[in-house]
């Protein structure tokens, strides 16, 4: 077997780690690359060597071909694995690797180019007899032409970036009058994301499911598939939950779709790992969408049901070996489901979240539960890169068992300090419709209310009560004077001990009476609960709340307490005991609601603004947000400029009250 002695991984986060794990098993040395923001990141520490490649912004580091090639040459890497995202589907990069004498672990530049432009791919596929969605994939791209071509396709219509992927530059148009604006927005986004504003129009199929097929080809003409993955649980075209096999396919349909995928692969002489994406209509027709010429985020579900290490095969193929597996050796065994844990807040429209992970506790290891994480305790989750923290994948004999295992795995995961979509994932996987297997790509949008439900309000009170006894217990343990004394001892009692906390903006006063050894009768207003402290442990407290004993995980950072039970997590804030009595400012200020980068400042000093006027456009990850004036006034100061990186709570613009008329 031919192989490499050293591989550079041109990526970061969980995928860099995942590739390195296979390298280690194969005895291959690993080289990581990192930006300023990642100097202490987990993938850097995990690698045998690491090379700094530039500033935090992706374009200066992980998208900088020159720097990465230089890092490869300098470290003596024989091959480069691009992971997913970044340069993974960049034909120029693949070529640059080869010309620098390093093997690009992926398909040929030619296959990448053919697949990259969606319109080209469409034409090739249609030619090869792969069914494609009715649409327009022409080279003429004027708004007028697009408008004209849209008409026969009809509404609803899907606009995509020709060069795109990952949902960027994608728009659904339901009304003809929305068309112009959607084309313009999609083009702007496509240009920004891919440097190519060409668009593709397709009929938008309502109620479609997203089915994709993993293919793998060697350089000796062998091409196999590793069955399908269903990725219909998406949010704004961003996959959230993926599984295999698809509950929507019977074996006949499966065979057809897999055969079509192989056909698609052959039509572009595909080598290495790739994915052919299809949509499946409610009437069981399927259409080609695109070929992803990389290892997919969701590849673990395929690995778990087939027992194949896709990265190992990628490396073997890239080194020039023949495929070590034959099609008939690939079997689907059991069922696997993957959930993507993102740093985002589902309750405020999935706004990307940033912060420091105070802890990173993965669920206890059980057979068939796989966690591909890119972070560990102390990791800084910033604004520069994709907010995915980890993937949790459960594999079991059948779908229901895998679903249960995944829910339990997620409920055991503790990632305090950064808001995540953990509960949202649990709610989704636990949803009866997801459980039934009958859903389509609109599932999340259709059920968003149920999936982001805040839960019983008493959960907030339980969280507050648990934090109150936790603080009290720790304080007692830290007491220097008479630590064995009953806490709060009074020979002449006056008031019960109490503490001021806040959960979700709501102040909660918790007071308690001691009842026997370790027992407390807790009160929050009219709500009462009996709590018994069993033990205070590292990172948590084991308490009985109203006769049920549970471990509540707690991590603290300053006045913030991140508390998590199996089914919920809350941030409990300790309100200051002595409020700052200095007078509040008379100015109104616009503050950054989230970490991000200032895209544009819309106002200048001295300008008069009305309530609701835009002040600053802020961008964080893929979301653009316009901050608006809360009241009329005069702009007194602009404290940021375009390009500035801002943290939540940073003051951006100050407005003085409008002069009296």
């Amino acid at each position, binding site marked *: 077997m031919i192989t490499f002695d050293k591989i550079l991984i041109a990526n970061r986060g969980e995928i860099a780690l995942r590739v390195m794990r296979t390298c280690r098993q194969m005895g291959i040395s690993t080289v990581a690359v990192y930006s300023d923001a990642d100097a202490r990141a987990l993938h850097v520490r995990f690698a045998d060597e690491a090379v700094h490649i530039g500033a935090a912004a992706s374009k200066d580091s992980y998208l900088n071909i020159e720097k990465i090639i230089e890092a490869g040459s300098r470290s003596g890497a024989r091959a480069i694995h691009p992971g997913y995202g970044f340069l993974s589907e960049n034909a120029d990069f693949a070529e640059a690797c080869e010309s620098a004498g390093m093997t690009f672990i992926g398909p040929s530049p030619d296959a990448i180019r053919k697949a990259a432009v969606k319109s080209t791919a469409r034409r090739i596929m249609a030619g090869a007899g792969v069914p494609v969605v009715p649409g327009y994939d022409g080279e003429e791209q004027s708004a007028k032409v697009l408008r004209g071509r849209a008409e026969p396709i009809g509404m609803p219509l899907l606009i995509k970036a020709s060069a795109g992927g990952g949902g960027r530059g994608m728009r659904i148009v339901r009304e003809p009058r929305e068309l112009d604006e959607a084309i313009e927005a999609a083009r702007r986004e496509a240009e920004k994301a891919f440097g190519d504003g060409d668009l593709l129009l397709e009929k938008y199929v309502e109620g479609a499911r997203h089915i994709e097929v993993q293919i793998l080809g060697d350089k000796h003409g062998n091409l196999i598939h590793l069955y399908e993955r269903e990725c219909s649980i998406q949010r704004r075209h961003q996959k959230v939950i993926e599984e295999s096999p698809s509950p929507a396919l019977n074996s006949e349909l499966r065979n057809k779709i897999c055969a079509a995928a192989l056909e698609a692969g052959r039509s572009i002489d595909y080598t290495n790992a790739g994915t052919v994406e299809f949509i499946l209509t409610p009437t069981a027709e399927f259409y080609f969408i695109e070929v992803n010429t990389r290892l997919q985020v969701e590849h673990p579900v395929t690995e778990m049901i087939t027992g194949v290490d896709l990265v190992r095969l990628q490396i073997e193929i890239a080194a020039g070996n023949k495929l070590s597996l034959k099609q008939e050796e690939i079997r689907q065994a059991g069922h696997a489901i993957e959930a993507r844990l993102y740093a985002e807040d589902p309750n405020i429209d999935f706004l990307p979240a940033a912060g420091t992970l105070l802890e990173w506790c993965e669920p206890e290891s059980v057979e068939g539960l796989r966690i591909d994480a890119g972070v560990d305790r102390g990791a800084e989750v910033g604004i520069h890169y994709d907010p995915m923290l980890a993937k949790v994948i459960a594999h079991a004999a059948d779908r229901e068992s895998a679903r249960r295992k995944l829910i339990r795995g997620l409920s055991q995961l503790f990632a305090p300090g950064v808001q995540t979509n953990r509960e949202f994932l649990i709610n989704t996987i636990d949803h009866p419709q997801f459980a039934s297997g009958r859903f389509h790509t609109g599932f999340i949008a259709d059920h968003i209310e149920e999936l982001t439900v805040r839960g019983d309000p008493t959960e907030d009170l339980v969280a507050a009560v648990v934090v109150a006894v936790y603080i009290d217990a720790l304080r007692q343990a830290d007491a220097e004077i008479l630590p*064995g004394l009953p806490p709060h001892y*009074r*020979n002449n009692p006056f008031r019960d001990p109490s503490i001021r906390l806040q959960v979700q903006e709501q102040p909660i006063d918790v007071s308690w009476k001691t009842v026997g050894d370790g027992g407390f009768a807790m009160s929050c207003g009219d709500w009462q609960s009996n709590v018994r402290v069993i033990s205070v442990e590292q990172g948590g407290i084991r308490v009985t709340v109203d006769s049920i004993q549970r471990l509540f995980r707690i991590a603290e950072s300053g006045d913030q307490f991140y508390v998590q039970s199996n089914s919920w997590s809350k941030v409990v804030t300790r309100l200051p*005991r*002595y409020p700052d*009595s*200095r007078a509040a400012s008379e100015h109104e200020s616009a503050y950054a609601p989230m970490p991000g980068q200032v895209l544009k400042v819309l106002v200048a000093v001295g300008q008069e603004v009305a309530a609701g006027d835009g002040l600053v456009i802020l961008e964080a990850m893929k979301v653009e947000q316009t901050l608006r004036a809360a009241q009329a006034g005069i702009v007194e100061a602009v404290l940021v400029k375009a390009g500035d990186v801002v943290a939540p709570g940073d003051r951006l613009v100050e407005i003085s009250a409008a002069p009296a008329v």
Partner: protein
Amino acid sequence: MQVIKTVVNSSDEIYRANYETNSAAIEKLKRELSRSTKGGGDQYVKRHLARGRMLPRERIEMLLDEGSYFLEVAPLAGIGMENEFIGAGVVGGVGLVSGRECIIIANEATVKGGAVSEIGQLKNRRLSDIGTENHLPSISLVESAGADLPVQAKIFVPGGRGFREITRRSKLRIPSISVVFGNSTAGGAYLPGMSDYVIMVRNQAQVFLGGPPLVKMATGEVVDEESLGGAEMHSQTSGLSDYLAEDELDGIRMARDIVRHYCDPSPRPRLRPVEEPLYPADELLGIASADVRVPFESREVIARIVDGSRFEEFKSKYGTTLVTGFAYVHGYSVGILANNGVLMSESAAKGAQFIQLCNQQNIPLVFLQNITGFMVGRTYEEQGIIRNGAKLINGVSNSTVPAITIMTGSSYGAGNYAMCGRAYEPRFLFTWPNHRIAVMGPQQLSGVMDIIKREALAKQGLPVEEEKLNAAKMALEAQIERESDPYFATARLWDDGIIDPRDTRTVIAISLSASCNRPVEGTMEWGVFRH
């Protein structure tokens, strides 16, 4: 160290009777304590709160560290006395502020505007003494109209002592803070005036030697209170105030910040790991005799107070009416002296020797008093009961290690002295609700008086009027009974408070810890022992 073996039987009839009576006594105590927290009554409390001010106990709660204990001193001072409110218009005690043990003194502004009564002054003095004796920094939460003028004759002259003590403590490097929340007039102005740190609350504090009416009387000058002695004036112009607080909580926060920069107290003795007693404190209610005439085993009390119920008894076979020995309370080494019957020559001599040993090794003393007095009678006098009792009193008087006294039953006669009663300046002294205190028991006292009267009549050859004599005897017995009552005692600051017996271990621990703020230095110098 051996564990004390208990022989308490909770189904025993005497145990159950004691338990019942003592429980009722605790209920009464709780009721009275609850009354003590009500200030000057609903109307005044409401008025005070309506002015946006905090109650003294609220101020104390906010001043204390979260989770800190607060051992209130003499909460029932003045109870049942004429011209006095329960608590005597002052709230004070020991608690933790910024991790330091402090003595806190707060005026109860809802009682006569915080004016100082006769007992109030006694209580202030006691709190001040606790600060001085134990080297505890003091924090005064001031809002007082000054002297209670109608009773000035009782307080004016001795009142000067309080101001003297603040500056003497300052000299001993025991700092004082005054947070002025309201009035602090005339003599009261010297409370902040003498303090090391003064915080005044904006728009509330008013400190002047003479208020506007007096100024007008004296010099004819017309001036408003705020310009005469407001917080801003004192912070910006007179310099009497060192810190200007925006509001009450701000002032309390400032006091906490000041304590934070104090240097560390003297190093504490090395403490042992704390062990809880093996037996429940609740059983003390069945052990302690409800009727003080019935003796009870003091080792059973010790077993429910000391760490691990371990007690190294000293001279267990000698002078057995006084139990002496070493133990730990919350890790603090202590020497315990506990009565187990009437004091005999041997027990008194043994006690004196034990006190000397504790002084030699810098071990604090704990006295568990339950004493009817020294033995009387010809044999005992011949054995030198006075001579031997004097040894014990000599020891108690000259001992310099901290002493903490708990009155667990009776405290009669010279036994009170020999077992470190109030006059012998224990650092802290608390009593149980079943306690009785007097020169002797009411029956003995009235009986003695009866005999004396009869002898006098006989000497003068006058007839004995049985009815009259009996009536006088009964009246006297009733009077002594009333005056022996623990509430009568605590009202007059004869102790630092009545406690729930089950809290004894906690109260001793707080007292010991507070005492150790001053270096524990036993003496080897004594008065001449009469051998």
